[in-house]
């Protein structure tokens, strides 16, 4: 009994230390994001790496998810003759829930891993130390541009993914389930209120912060060579995914009651 209690204690302490470390990094990042000068070139580089280059995989996953939701709801709706509500189901679930979540998970896997690996190898080859000796704060130089890039690109990517997901539903409904094109478009936008899109995008901002902070934190505390870089990359992705899903559940509940 006692050893497992002790273990639980250790886990709790580690979790608190981790949360403390990530929050401190977050505060420092906000400080450096606000501090001039604005590093346009680096931010642009990161925007391309994180946002633009994630578009293909985002297209693929969102499109298929749109297809899946359409078929899944058709399976139910056809029984009660409610096919005309399929577009609404697709648009609501994609904009409120699936679009933001799926995009965040894809970016956590793709971008989170690459941030952790890049900063991690910079750490083990003393490049981060070198940055400090050159009178440059690593958070300012490495984390802030990545944060700005993710914070702006993830919402854009999500809006894009929402559209592609709705397109997936469109293809299924119009070409397979026999809905007319105009009905699909009308039923997509009829139930959709701005609130749905905004709650989705608000969550996206939280997800972007989680991905950036967890990956940078893991990368910058790497120790022990290539092995350390590997395990930090894994941890960055796993932790981001867990936190994204947990915070998604949290906000979904909040928005259910509040809005």
């Amino acid at each position: 009994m006692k050893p497992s209690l002790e273990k639980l204690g250790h886990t709790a302490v580690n979790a608190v230390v981790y949360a403390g470390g990530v929050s401190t990094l977050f505060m420092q990042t906000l400080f450096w994001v606000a501090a001039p000068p604005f590093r346009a070139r680096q931010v642009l580089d990161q925007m391309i790496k994180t946002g633009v280059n994630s578009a293909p995989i985002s297209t693929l996953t969102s499109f298929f998810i749109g297809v899946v939701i359409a078929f899944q709801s058709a399976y139910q709706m056809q029984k009660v003759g409610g096919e005309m509500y399929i577009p609404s189901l697709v648009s609501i679930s994609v904009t409120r829930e699936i679009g933001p979540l799926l995009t965040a998970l894809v970016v956590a896997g793709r971008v989170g891993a690459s941030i952790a690996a890049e900063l991690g190898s910079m750490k083990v080859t003393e490049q981060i130390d070198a940055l400090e000796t050159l009178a440059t704060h690593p958070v300012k130089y490495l984390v802030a541009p990545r944060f700005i890039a993710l914070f702006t690109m993830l919402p854009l990517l999500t809006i894009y993914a929402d559209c592609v997901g709705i397109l997936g539903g469109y293809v299924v409904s119009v070409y397979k389930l026999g809905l007319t094109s105009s009905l699909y478009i009308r039923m997509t936008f009829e139930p959709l209120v701005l609130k749905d899109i905004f709650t989705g995008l608000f969550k996206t901002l939280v997800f972007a912060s989680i991905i950036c902070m967890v990956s940078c934190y893991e990368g910058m505390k790497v120790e022990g060579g290539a092995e350390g870089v590997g395990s930090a990359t894994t941890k960055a992705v796993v932790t981001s995914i867990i936190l994204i899903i947990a915070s998604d559940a949290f906000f979904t509940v909040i928005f259910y009651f509040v809005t």
Partner: protein
Amino acid sequence: METPADMIEVKKVAKSFRGRLVLNQLDLKVHKGETLVVIGRSGCGKSVLLKHIIGILKPDQGEILVEGVNVAALSSKQLNQLRLRFGMLFQGSALFDSMTVGENVGFNLIEHTTLSERAIHERIEESLELVGLKGIQELKPSELSGGMKKRVGLARAICMRPEILLYDEPTTGLDPIMADAINELIVELHDKLKVTSIAVTHDMISAYKVASRIAMMYQGKIIQAGTPDQIRNASNPIVQQFITGSASGPMTDIQVKSLEETEGGSKS
């Protein structure tokens, strides 16, 4: 003549990693304008000492004073101000591999000065020329050999013309001719620009060539410091063993055992 002022003073600094003591109440003084060479066996903590002096590592105990100011007590802004007066060559070069050689060398100028692009370019070219590497500005560090990386690292360290230079093994991995050229460069920086330098090395030829003073590090302490002649004639057997490079002596009293001698290790 008064005694030379101390540029850097390391006072009773202790540092341990995971319970293993690496620096043990280490004391060291570096006079203004001298080149102090720190010698010592691999793994004895020389690189750790340099990292303490520039403030990347914080001592567990003791303090490090630069011109009388405690480095650990500075705010991060003041620390960065101080670091602009330093140049450091890392043992593993630590070049930024996402940038070109030129951007690496000119990092400080690009980040911390308002010089024109042209002036920066000239300065980079000049620094690279000093280390015998011309026209490689556009290459990436991954395209360089180990010795070239080291020299680019050196060019980056001297590009801002710092007042204090820390060299971590400046000549290891270089061919003897290049090594001598780097030694000449260190001497020249010392003579002409009056830089205060600390150089870590195993290479005794280089040590004798560049040093104003030599300090020997052993078991986390400086066990002897003095002019090259004083070190050469030191009576301390540990110092003697190191500078003559002999495998047997007080530093290495562990004998190689055969498999049979090792307990339970017989082959049959």
